[in-house]
Each structure stands twice: as C-alpha cells, then as structure tokens.
C-alpha cells in the first residue's frame, strides 16, 4: 500500500523564523563591528585574575595576612585591548544569541520536530553554540577579546547558510527519524561549535605569538596584531575548548554509529562522512598528543588544531556536496 501525506508546516512560525534569521545576522554584525573597534582602539589594560588568568607575582591578599606569591612561570601579565564598547558589544552579542535561539525554536515549531535536520539548520545551530561558547568564555575567562574573531566565521557560516543552504521547514526523511539522530547531531553540533571557538582562539594565538617573536627581535608591531592578549592565554583558552569538544565529538561519533547500526545495518562503513569524522577525531587526538610531546607544544600543536577545524568544516560542506553517500541529506 502507498499513502500520501501533506507536509504539516505551521506557516506563521515559519515566517517568524525567517524574519529572525535576518534580525540575528544584523545583530551579530553590529556586535562584531563593536568588538573590532574595541580590539583596534581600546586601551591595553590588565585582565582580572581568574580561572585561566595568572595570579600575578607578588600580589597581596587583602586583610591582615600578607601573602607573598611567587609564580615560577614568568607569565607575561595578561593584557588585552579593552574599552566600554566591548561591554556593549557583549550585550549586543547576547541579544543576537537570544534571537538565534528564538529562530531555532520557531523553526522547530514550524516543522513540528527537533530543529536540526538539514544543513541549514545544522549551520545555524552550530553558530548558536559558538556564540554561546564566546559568551561563556567572556564570563568565565574574560575572553571578550575573542569576540571579533569568533563572530567572523559565525557571520560567514550564516551567510553561506542563508544564501546556499536554505530550505523551507518541513518533515524529515525516514532515515533521520530516530531518537539517536538528535543525540548524535546535538553532540556533533556542540562539539563543532567548541572546535570553532578553539580554532579561532588558535589562529589568534598564532598571530599573537608571531607579534611577540617580532617584538622580541626589537620590531614594533602595530595594528590589532600588536594589541592582542598574550599568546599563553589564547593557547590556554584554545586548549580548554578542545578538552570540552573532543570527548563530545568522540561521543557524537559513537552515537552516530549506533544510529547507523539501526538504520543501515552496520555501525561503521567508511562512508565519506564517517571517514572525515574519523580524520577529524584522529587529528584532534594528535593535537592532544602533540601538547604532551617535547618540542611540539606551541605553534606546531596549534597548527594541528587549526587543521582539525578545517577538516570539520570540510566534512560539513564538501562531504555533503562532493561525495555521494548515505549521509548526503543536503
């Protein structure tokens, strides 16, 4: 027997979600602009000591007990270009985050299902995670200085999403109707957002590292490159997000193979998407190893991190369009 069915789409939710996409892109663009001004024209001031910030040598504890602290690692003091514009930018980013979230919710309501079932929805959700990670890093690690850098790929991805990947909201193909899919896809999206922030922090690290080397040679470094925070902090933030994203990615790949087992009768079949998730996984494992291997820490390890992020992006775009495979649900 064959039945047919009308796609149930809630039109008002669908149009609300489409409006929200534009609103959120405009908001993120405004935030990026403000962050960029802060990075370029703010005054270079010391960051508060915090979770990832060094406790400065010789700092004095308030009250009556004087504590003399000596930190062996002669950390350069963590400084970043700061201005009040950055705070505004952060608030605008938070607004964009709310719009982004609302967009995803309305789209889910429009289609009557969890809202990451195709490339467009996938990209939008990954941007949400990256911005969420930026907000978290700003709060927890005072890493607001990453704002301009994180929002660049976010806006690029959203632009690509709207221009080339957009599809109307609607139901899913049968292979995607499994509760393992939201689990798998959610893990992969969150890990992807983490890798994105880590990759961006990594690139910023490479620039900052280079500025520092040039400064050490006595050259003067101008522009944003010269006003970046110290490489150590960028490296630490970058590493932090890998620690968060790598186990999630591992879990996501496993959840995906459980789903593949249910849907296709094998849990691992070297389909191009599987091959590339494996490649990304191995590269991030190599990154973690490199940090424990003499002579590899620093820029070399960071290049591996950046390479890892490129493979994640390649997997997202190229594999869906270049190869035919079971995963080509673009």
């Amino acid at each position, binding site marked *: *027997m*064959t*039945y*047919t*069915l*009308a*796609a149930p789409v809630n039109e008002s939710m669908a149009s609300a979600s489409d409006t929200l996409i534009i609103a959120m892109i405009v908001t993120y663009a405004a935030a990026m602009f403000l962050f960029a001004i802060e990075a370029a024209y703010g005054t270079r001031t010391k960051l508060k*000591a*915090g*979770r*990832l*910030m060094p*406790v400065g040598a010789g700092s004095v*504890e308030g*009250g009556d*007990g004087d*504590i*003399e*602290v*000596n*930190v*062996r*690692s002669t950390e350069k003091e963590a400084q970043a270009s700061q201005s009040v514009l950055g705070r505004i930018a952060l608030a605008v980013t938070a607004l964009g985050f709310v719009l982004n979230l609302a967009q995803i919710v309305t789209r889910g309501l429009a289609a009557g299902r969890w809202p990451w079932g195709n490339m467009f929805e996938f990209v939008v959700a990954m941007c949400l995670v990256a911005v969420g990670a930026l907000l978290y890093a700003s709060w927890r690690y005072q890493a607001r200085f990453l704002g301009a850098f994180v929002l660049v790929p976010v806006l690029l991805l959203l632009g690509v999403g709207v221009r080339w990947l957009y599809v*109307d909201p*609607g*139901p899913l*193909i*049968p*292979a995607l*109707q*499994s509760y393992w899919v939201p689990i798998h896809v959610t893990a992969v999206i969150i890990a992807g957002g983490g890798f994105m922030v880590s990759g961006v922090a990594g690139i910023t690290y490479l620039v900052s590292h280079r500025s520092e080397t040039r400064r050490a040679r006595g050259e003067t470094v101008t522009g944003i490159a010269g006003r970046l925070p110290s490489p150590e902090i960028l*490296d*630490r933030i970058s590493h*932090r997000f890998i*620690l968060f994203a*790598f*186990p999630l990615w*591992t879990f996501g790949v*496993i959840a995906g193979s459980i789903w593949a*087992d*249910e*849907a*296709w*009768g*094998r*849990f691992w*079949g*070297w389909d191009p998407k599987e*091959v*590339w998730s*494996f*490649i990304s996984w*191995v590269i991030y494992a*190599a990154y973690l*190893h490199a940090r*424990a*291997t*003499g002579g590899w*820490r620093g820029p070399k390890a960071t290049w591996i991190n950046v390479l890892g992020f490129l493979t994640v992006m390649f997997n997202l775009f190229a594999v869906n369009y270049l*190869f035919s495979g079971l995963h080509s649900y673009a």
Partner: protein
Amino acid sequence: MSTTTSENSHDEPESPAPKPKGLGALGWARWIWRTLTSMRTALILLFLLALGAIPGSFLPQNVVSVDEVATYFRENPELAPWLDRFYLFDVFSSPWYGAIYLLLFVSLAGCVIPRAITHAKAVRARPVKTPRNLGRMPYVARFGTDATPDTALERAREVLKGYRIERYEDSVSAETGYLREVGNVLFHLALLGLLLALAAGAFFGYRGNLLLVEGDGFANTLPSYDAIYPGHWTDTDEFAPFTIHMEDFEAVFIEEGSLRGQADSYVADLRYTEEPGGEERTHRLQVNHPLSVGGVQVYLLGHGYAPEFEVRNADDEVVFDQAVPFLYRDTMSFTSDGVVKVPDTGGEELGFVGVFLPSAMEDSEGELVSDFPGARNPMVTLEAYRGDLGMVDPQSVYQLKTQGMEGLGESPVMAVGDTWELPEEAGSITFTGVKEYATLQTNRDGARLPALAAATLAVVGLLVTLFVRPRRVWVRATEGEDGRTRVELAGLGKTEAAGDNTEFHELTSRLAARLRSEPDDDPNTPPEKSTTQGSDR
C-alpha cells in the same frame, strides 16, 4: 602552564632514543622498540592514520559500494588498475593501512602498558618527600602566622581535603589526581579492545542482501540471498535458521509543498519464526527499527514496485502469474524498469521488457511520465520478445538477452486490468496489479556489543584523563627568627591544565584565613590528631 614541562613528570622520552653504537642485534632491537613506543612516533603514526584515510573518501571504496568502483573502472580504464595496485579502492583493508594502524597499536601497547605498571606502583607509594627548596616550584606562596608550626600543618591537612597526605618533619606532602593515569590507560586499552572487536566481527560475521515482495517469505540460508558477504572465517552452513514472511509494505510520501514526493515513512509488517515450525511473532520493520532474530539483525534498506502479470500462451492457458520486481530509476518519480521472463509457454519462450510508472501523467510535451513516487495511477508499457531466453547460462533477472529473440512490438499504455493481445497470436499478457517489495539487509556481527562496550569505556577513560588534574602540594611551616611561624605553600601541576595556580592560590588563601582565625596559641590547645590517612580524588 607554559613552563611546567621541564619539571613535571610526563614520562615521555624527551628526544628520540640515542642511536646504538655497535651494540649488536639486541641494541638495535631495543632502539627500535624505544623509538616505536615514543610519543613522537605515536604522533607521526596518528598523522599517517588521518592522511591515509583521505583517499578512502575521494575514491569509491569496495566496502561502500562495489558498483561505484566498477563504474570508476569503466570511466577510467587507464588509471583505475594503477590505483587498484595500491589498494586504493580497499584503503581500509589494505596492507599499508593495516601496517599503519598495527604499528600504532603496537606502539600504544608498548607505551601504555609499562606506564600502567609504573602507575600501579605509584598509587601504593606515599606522597614524595618534600623537596628542600620549595622556591623552585611553579607556584610558591609565603606568609607569616602566629600559630605554631604544628598547628599550621594541621590546618594545612584540613585545607588539603581530598589529597593524600604524608607528614615529613616540618612539612606535609600532598598529592591528588591519581585517577587521571588510570583514565589514560583505560582509554588507550579500550581503543585496543575496540580494534580487536572490530577485527573479530569482520572475520566471523556476515552481511547479506535480499528482496522480498509483499506476501512472500524468506528462510535464512545461503541460497536465499541475492548477495552475501561472509567474513574469512564465517561458517556459511551454520546460519541461524529463522524465517521471515512479509505481510504488507507501506510507503508514505509528502503530497504537497516544496518537499512533495519526499518519503515520510516506510513500514514492512513481518511475521517471523526463530526456526522453521517455531512460534510465530510479528514485527513492524521500519528504517531505524531493525528486527533482531537469532543473533542476526534485519534492516529495511529500500523499496520498489513489483507489477503483477498474468501471461497466457497461444492456447489461452495461464503459463505465468506473479509479481515481478522492477528497479527504480530515481526516488522522485519511481519510474521503474523490469523484465518478465516466461520460459515455460509450451511453445517458444517469451520475454518482456517493461517500464512502470506509479503515477502516470502526460507532461507538457505529451510524453508519459510519472510525477509522484506513490502508486496513484500505475501504468506499464511493455516490449515483447519471442525466442530463446538463453536461460542455460546464469543471468540477471533485470536484463533480457535479446540476441536469440525476435521483437514482437510494443504494447499500448496499460492500466491495471488491461490485457495486451500479443501480435502473431503469440498469446496475451495482463497487468493484474501492483505489489511493493522491500530490500532487506541481514547482518550478523558479534562485535557490535563488545565494540560498543569498548567505545563507552574509551569515552569514560577520556573524560577522566582530560578532567582529573594530578597535582602536588607541599606545605612547610618553620619558626622564624622573629618567633612567628613562616608558612610556605608550593604547588606543582603535573599536567599542563590551566588554572592550577589559581587553585593553589585558593588553598593558600584558605589556609591563611584559617590560621588568622586561630586563637592565639596557648598550651591548652587540644593536641593534634595524628591521623596520616588522606584520600584519593
């Protein structure tokens, strides 16, 4: 921490092992082993593992689709045999890829197992003796207090909750985070286990494809399959003897809007038994809802149409009456092609080449096409042939060899119930109805659960490795010249985890605060408890 490496205890060989100088075979073997199990080699092998996988995504692979490889050979007759020589169509089972991952796993075992043994000893040992000069540690704090040195150390013990603590004269030595190393070993060994499980599954399991028309059945024996892929050591005579009968198949398609024609669901209603004559059970087979029977998983892979035909010979006797599976060209129109072979007519053999349109309509150019995958208006057109089907040789059921046959012409467009009287009184063919078929895959892979268990352990081990931070803290309290007690707290993070200094600093602050609220020492202060037991975190 950018500078902790020098003094922390990553037990990695810092540089490649020194090359042996005239040490003979044993020396060389030792050198090779040390090089192979170094972190640097592991890193290189990980890169090779990633690099080697790349051709596996760009070139068609036999594990993914034998057909795509065949197409590639046809389109690149020069290049393909060369690529094949390097196993580039079987990357993941090639000797060179195997060499990479075997070396990696040998390196892994050689690296991790000695580490596990060292660690097992370290876990039982007491925290190390306090170094004489704490000033060399990455984090050192000093402050003065009016409490006695003994009180200061006792308070330090309280502040260092969760650490394993040992008192050494004027100091305590504390250590925590032993679990990290356990996690690291667990993670790496779980990967080893995963590899072994995968290998076992590939050697002992099998995978098979079959096609089942509504109303038909299947028994799990080798000949029932259209295609079967057993492992090297699979016993093909010992298949689980289950049977399956497909009652009904349903496909639902989206009818309106931009997603028109996209499939919404497929459902196959099955009856099955564990063995012939066994108790009969039912199962609704859907994508993502496989049937598990006799240790074998049965999956719904795809579907298609099987138009039913009745063929009569020249004497008007029914010589053929069954559903014939057709293969679809695309999933939007489900326009399908098939062949009807009628060897037993009492006279010359008959063959038909047919095109099936599930939702036939005329397009703007007056051509008959199918505009929907569902069977809304099923139609077939046939071409008839008479002569020798050539059935003595094995042949595909989807192809008609027309060399030995004479064409009898084309049928009109036939709806269900229509009959075409063949030219030259060769008989007739009636399009009696439409059934659907499902393509199923069976898979026996004993490694599924062991592999899942190993993967789960790997994740657990990974989380422990990444988030447990082993670190050491020493507190020394000595009487200063001014009669006050000088407290010195030093911390060493054994991994490069950030935030260690912050944490050590918090310990210092807490200890200082406690000593500050300490009532001035007098002889009536109760004597310290002298437990030395700490605990692991």
